[in-house]
């Protein structure tokens, strides 16, 4: 598997899209801080040019990052089916499990790297450009990252699964959106009427990541109290990751490659 991972990293380093994704996300987030700072400069009574406001703004926006996981998986997948490149690996006898897991590991590594760069630039620019209001919001951000991380990994696994199973990228992305975004939302509504959907919707990653909230003292407000929250977030995150990876692998191992 090491060889496969090495080759995928080699390709990823030479793919413009991998730099563009990090660049565009970083610019968008930094521009939030630039905008807040410039308004603060021109309007002295403006109350939001503060690090706590900017950072808390991100802490409540994990759903967006959850959706972006699809883009990360798609960049790493590299349009294998449209390019018909996977047959070169299969016909050399590279085991499908190595291809499947190798790509997932690379997607995970790239996602973590992108996340650290984007977050680092965002937090750094906040402290550089805005009024420093202390570390409370940053601590809350770090805690929420710990909770969001397993959900983001599960979103990556789901995206990975569909990209391997469906030939067209647009069809795969639509299916991913239905599975990881639309279905949890619909489940929540159905949960108002049916008990089973109510229970299911509470453990779906999109709903769990959306349930990461905070109060005015920058304390996290979660579906579970104390450390049980972290345990449950990781347990459900890993559970969905394993489910998606297993379904994807089983079906991919039977899939004919063109």
């Amino acid at each position, binding site marked *: 598997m090491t060889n496969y991972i090495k080759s995928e990293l080699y390709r990823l380093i030479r793919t413009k899209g991998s730099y563009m994704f990090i660049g565009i996300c970083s610019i968008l987030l930094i521009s939030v801080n630039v905008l807040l700072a410039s308004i603060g400069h021109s309007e002295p009574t403006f109350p939001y040019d503060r690090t706590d406001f900017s950072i808390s703004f991100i802490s409540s926006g994990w759903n967006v990052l959850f959706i972006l996981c699809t883009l990360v998986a798609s960049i790493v997948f590299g349009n294998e089916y449209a390019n018909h490149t996977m*047959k*070169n690996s*299969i016909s*050399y006898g590279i085991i499908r499990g190595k291809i499947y897991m190798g790509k997932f590991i690379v997607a995970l590594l790239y996602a973590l790297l992108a996340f650290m760069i984007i977050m680092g630039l965002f937090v750094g620019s906040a402290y550089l450009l805005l009024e420093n209001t202390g570390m409370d919001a940053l601590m809350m951000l770090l805690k929420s990252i710990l909770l969001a991380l397993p959900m983001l990994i599960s979103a990556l696994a789901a995206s990975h699964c569909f990209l391997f199973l469906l030939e067209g990228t647009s069809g795969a992305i639509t299916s991913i959106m239905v599975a990881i975004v639309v279905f949890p939302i619909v489940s929540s509504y159905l949960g108002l009427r049916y008990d089973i959907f109510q229970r299911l919707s509470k453990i779906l990653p999109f709903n769990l990541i959306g349930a990461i909230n905070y109060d005015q003292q920058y304390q996290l407000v979660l579906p579970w109290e104390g450390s049980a929250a972290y345990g449950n977030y990781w347990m459900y995150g890993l559970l969905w990751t394993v489910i998606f990876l297993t379904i994807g692998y089983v079906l991919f191992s039977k899939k004919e490659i*063109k």
Partner: protein
Amino acid sequence: MRDTILSTRNLTKKYGNTAALSNVSLEVKQGDIYGLVGKNGAGKTTLLRLISGQAFSTEGEITLFDQSSPSGINLGRKRIGSIIETPSFYANLTAEENLEYYRLQRGIPGKECIQDALQEVGLADTGKKKYKSFSLGMKQRLGLALALMNKPELLLLDEPINGLDPFGIVEIRNLLIRLNQEKNITILISSHILSELSSLVTNYGFIDKSKLVKQLSAEELSMECGRYIELRVEPLEAMTALLETKLHTTNYRVNPDYSIHLFDYLNDPYKVSQIAVTNGIRLNSITLKEIKLEDYFIQLVGGESND
């Protein structure tokens, strides 16, 4: 006795109720250049896809380098180089980058294999040109370079000269002959044009409507095709005796329609007729005939247009 490198036994592939390949049994021995000939859609690519692991057979067995278990076959695939259907690479990488990607993936030590392979197919000076800007011929050559990079013992080539200009065809044909003769690489090559393979292959397999309809060696095919003298004589046995005793040839065939096809004396049919007449044979007709490769192929597979 040469080793069998690849064999299939009753290999069948069905999509629903439609058979893409039916009970195909073939044997490729070490050093062979085995030409798989058939119309488009006959099942050539399906067979190659089954051997390369891209598709799964419905029935039958593949034996590759004496291994027939799934894991053994998979190991055997590391000794194969292949181009199945069109060559496919990453559009935004150069020829060298694409090969480096697969070199890393395959764990081939040393980067010199990349230059060697590119040199071999005449792509050593493509520089920073991306794959997306390659001509069809260049793409075919890069596909061949990838197939050669791991120094394979068996090449699976699915219509590898598609898209090449006449010079390119000759170059690739010569390269394949050289690889076969100098490096003892066994080749399984498919084409829908029999004449493309005629100066290359040692054995033929004709595939039609998912079935392997005939296998024969290049020598046998040259007996079936090419120029010959058709003799219609009486008595038949006396004439064959004359051919052997007076003309010293056994290079003839007696056909079910009581004609004789003589493959010698093509430039001197007069001598044949003279021997017949002077020895009291009734010579009804003597005709110089020719069966072209393509005619033979069309006769064999029914002559319907390519689908």
